[in-house]
């Protein structure tokens, strides 16, 4: 299963992931990942037309009405997720990443759950919006992880190689040496149809990967409707989602009220999951275009 990844698309250091006991690789359905085209022969022009159901006007009704997130795999790259939390449900998988002596990524089954609460909150928000999506956890917080942007990078590399449809990254790193590698990974995700939804920093500092144009970057607004989101015509933050006083799941089966871009991000990730469950063929560019066209300040209601 894993071998199919290496020839599909170029991902930086594709052979650097080592699987350890108890972790099953879930390669994404090949149907969603058509082969890359490098040129366009005349006879192929008809084949690249937009899907016939693409409407003249993209509305929220077309984009996700009736969708539940079913069939879409969402990855929560965070502090772990409290599996079985009433607001989260069961997980597709839960892993944690570390680096061995040769700097290879080692993926192990995560038995510790959520070490902070934050990942559970994000998973719960995605679940609330897209109740039937599949949620997986990649934990990048843990003993000895602090100050090591390499774990964050390793976690994202794993998530990209796993081919998740949506990757929720409610965190970033300020470490510049990792920016180039993160940029490559964000582009790899973009080209292999993994929608990377990343939190903008809450403070005016340079951090990554939310600043890259291949991701969907999210800041907060203060409205209460989870489906209210705005397109920002003054990037680098591209969208604003609900991020203030959000009731969210927390460790121990509890709930808290949380604020920050961290919580705006899974709102957009959840909406992406809905869109992709109704329109599985869309590329990240098209998903972002749909988000733009259905934003509350563009063509969307709510």
């Amino acid at each position, binding site marked *: 299963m894993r071998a199919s990844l290496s020839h599909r698309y170029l991902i930086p250091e594709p052979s650097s992931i080592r699987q350890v006991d108890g972790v099953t690789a879930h390669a994404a359905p090949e149907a969603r990942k058509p082969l890359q085209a490098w040129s366009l022969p005349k006879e192929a022009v008809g084949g690249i037309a937009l899907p016939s159901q693409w409407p003249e006007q993209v509305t929220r009704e077309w984009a996700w009405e009736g969708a539940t997130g079913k069939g879409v795999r969402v990855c929560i790259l965070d*502090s772990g997720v409290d599996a079985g939390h009433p607001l989260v449900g069961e997980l597709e998988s839960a892993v944690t990443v570390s680096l061995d002596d040769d700097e290879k990524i080692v993926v192990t089954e995560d038995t510790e759950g959520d*070490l*902070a*609460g*934050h990942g559970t909150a994000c998973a719960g928000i995605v679940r609330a919006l897209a109740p039937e999506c599949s949620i997986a956890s990649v934990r*990048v*917080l*843990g*003993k*000895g*992880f*602090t*100050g090591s942007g390499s774990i*964050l990078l390793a976690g994202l590399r794993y998530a990209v190689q796993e081919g998740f449809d949506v990757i929720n990254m*409610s*965190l*970033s*790193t*300020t*470490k*510049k*040496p990792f920016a180039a590698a993160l940029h490559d990974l964000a582009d790899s995700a973009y080209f292999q149809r993994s929608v990377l939804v990343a*939190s903008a*920093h*809450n*403070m*005016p*500092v340079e*951090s990554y990967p939310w600043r890259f144009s291949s991701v969907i970057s999210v800041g*907060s607004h*203060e409205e209460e409707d989870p489906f209210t989101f705005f397109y920002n015509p003054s990037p680098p933050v591209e969208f604003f989602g609900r991020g*203030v*006083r959000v009731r969210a799941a*927390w*460790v*121990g089966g*509890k*709930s*808290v*009220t*949380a*604020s*920050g*871009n*961290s919580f705006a991000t899974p709102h957009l990730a959840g909406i992406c999951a809905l869109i992709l469950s109704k329109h599985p063929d869309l590329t990240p560019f098209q998903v972002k275009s749909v988000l733009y066209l259905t934003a509350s300040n563009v063509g969307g209601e709510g």
Partner: protein
Amino acid sequence: MTNESDLRAAVAVGVIGSGDAYRELLGAIVEVARSIFGAKASSILLYDEDTDELVFEAVVGEGEGELLGMRFPAGHGIAGWVLATHTPLIIEDVREDPRFATDVAEGTGYVPSGLMAAPLLNEERALGVLEVLDRPEQSVFSLAEMDLLGLFANQAAIAVDLLLRARRAERLLDGREDELAGVADLASKIAALEDDRREAGLRLLRELTATLGG
């Protein structure tokens, strides 16, 4: 005296005792943060890379007596998440959760019902975490407060950076206990004297220097 030792003595005058001043500055920052947000407590935690722990470096309000100097592993909890991800976090209405804010709860038995935490960023590194505990229950959190929290965190990060530099310099001087630390100590003491006594001290020093063949 060589240029190098000149420099060491000069540095020592600035360094010895400055750690205390910077710690006072941290104390002032958490005091103002608590006051501005109308919170019950505020604290600054520093990251100790050697032990992968967070240490309470300044505390005001609830837990003030117990928490200062207390350590806990940096790999978990809200402060741990903020430190690792360089991202602020605001959590409210959590009193029902016994696992919440275990860093504070374990030390004091005081479980806050809400917490704001922001990383202390110095260029690419997170030096620690600023926490503000229990804002007034009737107040509604807004994005403006998030900005304010960030401003305080930036100020605290500068103070922490200075404190860490002073400590590094102190350690360096300590490493030469038999030689320059004594000189540095003397220089620091003379600098702290009142005018008359300082003049007397300087005279003694000149005589000592002459005796030593300077």
